[in-house]
């Protein structure tokens, strides 16, 4: 059932995101024309057109990034907590499957947004003089790295990249779940559901920051901190990077899990569709 939920979720979100991606790629071609010559002509019309094309490209990048966030929040809100909720919440699927389908699909759109923005930037910079020089510089840097690359750096470098990607994925999920939890809490109220949702979001934010701050203060004087200080002489820089990344991933997993439990509990026990 999760697969089917995701299929329909992709269908519902794709009709918004795919045209936006297309618009971004088209504006990147326009921006490429602009940087390759339109901005440097003596013709006023072409000059203005060049500026407009670059502006359209910048707006499209911002628009796509903002819309991927808006779609993530709006799908949860409209699909589960508004009128469509009557159909969705009476499907023979569990609340967990609903949340996972929304989470996975949102994470995929975030990743695709990143890929398409990078692609659009490449298109914009294609065959542009100064970008060639930057690219050549990167190429030299890469070749230099390859010449001096040892197995130690290759393995650790790959591990750090993987850890970074995992951290981004878990972070995306935790961020989505914070919105979901706030909406689920707010919509359990009989009135002013959206106002309660916004309030819940900031209350959650405040509590997390407060607990985080308290945690750091308490850890500062704890045995754990002394244990870490004891390690500093025996642990390499690379190992401490891995340790830090794993700690951040675990921290995000814990935060995400708290939001997940809150969201499922409110959707199961306190669902209050109007």
């Amino acid at each position, binding site marked *: *059932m999760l697969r*089917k939920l995701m*299929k*329909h979720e992709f*269908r*519902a979100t794709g*009709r918004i995101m795919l045209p936006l991606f297309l618009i971004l790629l088209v504006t990147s071609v326009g921006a490429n024309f602009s940087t390759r010559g339109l901005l440097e002509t003596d013709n006023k019309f072409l000059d203005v057109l060049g500026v407009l094309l670059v502006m359209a490209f910048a707006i499209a990048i911002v628009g796509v990034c903002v819309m991927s966030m808006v779609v993530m929040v709006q799908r949860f809100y409209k*699909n589960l907590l508004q*009128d*469509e*909720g*009557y*159909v969705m*919440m*009476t*499907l*023979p*699927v*569990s609340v967990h499957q609903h949340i996972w389908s929304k989470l996975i699909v949102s994470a995929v759109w975030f990743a695709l947004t990143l890929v398409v923005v990078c692609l659009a930037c490449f298109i914009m910079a294609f065959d542009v003089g100064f970008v060639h020089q930057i690219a050549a510089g990167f190429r030299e840097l890469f070749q230099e790295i390859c010449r001096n690359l040892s197995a130690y750096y290759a393995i650790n470098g790959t591990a750090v990249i993987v850890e970074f990607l995992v951290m981004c994925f878990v972070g995306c999920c935790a961020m989505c779940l914070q919105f979901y939890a706030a909406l689920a809490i707010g919509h359990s109220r*009989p009135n002013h559901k959206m106002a309660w949702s916004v309030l819940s979001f900031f209350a959650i934010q405040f509590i997390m920051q407060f607990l985080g701050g308290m945690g750091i203060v308490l850890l500062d004087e704890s045995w754990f901190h002394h244990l870490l200080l004891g390690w500093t002489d025996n642990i390499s820089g690379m190992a401490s990077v891995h340790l830090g990344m794993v700690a951040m991933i675990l921290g995000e997993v814990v935060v995400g899990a708290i939001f997940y439990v809150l969201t499922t509990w409110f959707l199961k*026990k*306190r*669902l*209050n*569709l109007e």
Partner: protein
Amino acid sequence: MAVLECKNLTKQYGHVTALEDVSFSIEPGRIVGLLGPNGSGKTTLIKLANGLLTPTSGELTICNAAPGKETHAIVSYLPERTSIPLWMTATQLLDFYQDFYKDFRRDAAEEMLAHLNIPAKQRIKQMSKGTREKVQLIVTMSRAAQLYLLDEPIGGVDPATRDYILSTIIGNYNPEAAVVISTHLISDVEKVLDEVIFINQGHVVLQSSVDEIREEKGMSVDALFREVFKC
């Protein structure tokens, strides 16, 4: 075995009691009218049966199971408002129902769409309010469910369409299943009902077969309703 059973069911919204100590059961093969004035607790009861609300106390079971994922597979629910995704076309909506419900009869749904001249490729958003309600009823009644919970199925449509909807309900429900129709438009639905449950201010005030009402009280359900709920 009762398809739907309530035992001392109570639902409160804060300090407001929507249902209080409600007990009744509905057997298979019956078409039951859940009748009451506005705000009597009909929709709350149907939402509880669909797991959209949680009871404050008491118990509600569908085929001996509490509302949840398993009961959703055997209950076909028509909400009081249009809740099908408006961005879909009618065909996409049929795909959606076919994906999630094993008992969905696509051929029956397509036949009803064609009979009502509803274009399958048109987006639901572009349809009139009445047509949207028809589409929603078609997908609900195209399931071979064990319990149909229809909340105000004829509330927003013209009298001619009401007749079509009622004949659709009669013609398409599984004879082994129970149908619960919540409405206050009693004269329209009376002819299809086997049984009625009168509900007022969160209490069940009467559960009786339609034949008993006619024979023992010598009046129609509509007349009895007007007498019981006289303002």
